[in-house]
């Protein structure tokens, strides 16, 4: 599955079929999954913030596929332009066919740092170990998930639902998340340092820089650094 991997970054694509059923309140399982996911949005932070090495990820429900039918965009249309006698019936029979899915699918698309060994199992194991409650909350409505009650079974299940990417583009970088967050912290802090130390005499600047380096500890990835998923500027920095 090499095309899921770009350097040390991994593109995980999961489609899990949701059962065609409904709850006692007459809400379909697909809608229930949507509602559960929606409720994650009102928590102080996403459960995914707890899963190590997650850069960005998303959940949604695929109810159906779409058949967009713009006229004039097919080869036959061009042919009709060029040839005087292409019967309209030919054009009609070339119109797109209409497709529909027989199940809704829970889609989970995730980008994470997998390291040089492309460690998908490790990522999924951490996911199970940190947020298994949340996993069950949504995957519990999916076909084949009954009996998934430990990390190994979860890994197996996810692999059955996995799709390979045909192209994975990494526009930022593939560093470990701690590395990225620390770097962001340093960027913000150094910008402030540069502003407040502009124009000072060299001795003071040098002393201040020494203090700065001690305070921000560039090599220490644990602290101080940014918290994963932090929105609030005044709550962003995690101190030791």
């Amino acid at each position: 599955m090499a095309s899921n991997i770009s350097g040390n970054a991994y593109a995980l694509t999961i489609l899990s079929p949701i059962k065609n059923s409904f709850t006692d309140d007459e809400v379909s399982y697909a809608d229930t999954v949507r509602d559960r996911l929606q409720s994650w949005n009102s928590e102080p932070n996403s459960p995914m913030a707890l899963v190590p090495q997650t850069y960005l990820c998303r959940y949604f429900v695929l109810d159906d596929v779409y058949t967009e039918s713009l006229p004039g965009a097919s080869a036959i249309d061009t042919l009709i332009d060029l040839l005087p006698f292409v019967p309209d019936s030919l054009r009609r029979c070339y119109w797109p066919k209409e497709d529909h899915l027989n199940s809704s699918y829970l889609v989970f698309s995730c980008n994470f740092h997998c390291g040089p060994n492309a460690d998908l199992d490790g990522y999924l194991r951490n996911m199970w170990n940190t947020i298994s409650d949340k996993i069950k909350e949504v995957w519990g409505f999916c076909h084949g998930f009954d009996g998934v009650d430990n990390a190994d079974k979860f890994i197996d299940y996810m692999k059955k639902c996995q799709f390979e990417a045909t192209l994975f583009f990494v526009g930022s970088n593939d560093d470990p998340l701690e590395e990225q967050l620390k770097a962001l912290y340093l960027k913000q802090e150094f910008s402030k340092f540069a502003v407040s130390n502009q124009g000072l005499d060299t001795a003071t600047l040098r002393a201040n820089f020494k203090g700065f380096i001690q305070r921000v500890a560039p090599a220490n990835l644990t602290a101080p650094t940014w918290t994963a998923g932090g929105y609030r500027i005044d709550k962003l920095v995690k101190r030791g």
Partner: protein
Amino acid sequence: MSNIAGKAYAMNVITPIRSYLTWVNKLIFWAAVKVPGVLTGLVTLSLIHYARWVIIPKDKFPHLDPSQPKENLNYNYMLFFSNFNGSWDQYVDSFTFAIPGGLDLFWKWNIRYSKSVALTPFHDYIRYNQLETIHYYNAYPLAASNDVKSAKTVKSSLIQFEKDTQTVSDEEFLKLYNGLLRGLQHDLGDMYPTPIVTMSAYQVERRQKWHEGKLAEAGENHGK
């Protein structure tokens, strides 16, 4: 729904593709990675954290249980996932302005793809085939892709500078410090919340509450 997490927007687009043309598309994707220069436009735009294309063959939708009905489809489906910076319009527009040929190369194998110029049919095509995200998580909501990249430069430059200036004179220190700033002159942009790109009053209020740490008061707690 929530297509936005801080500075990132989650776009999902699903489009039908004829099964006998799928291999051409795959070939092009393969070449895009291998042949230098093909992705230069994308790299220059610098608006994407991570993006991927996934092709699902019509008979390969996961079938995990005998009680699950089998899919019966005419076409394969291409899923496109992108984590980009900016608003929907900004992203779609920037792409069609800057690299219309590249977009067409990737999508023209899809049924009734409109081509990226003119803009309005392309907008419609994407809108009709877009799937809304329900939950979107971003590890660094305040950072754009540019910020993640420049942060890496800042970190390595700082570490190098500290190493280089351990024993130098004050005069040399200043010279190197000026060099440090000069080298980072495109990497020191502040990282604050992104400008509001949605006109959904609910989203605006929610965002305000979030930044003030009062999300719990936003009065929504459904689903559990």
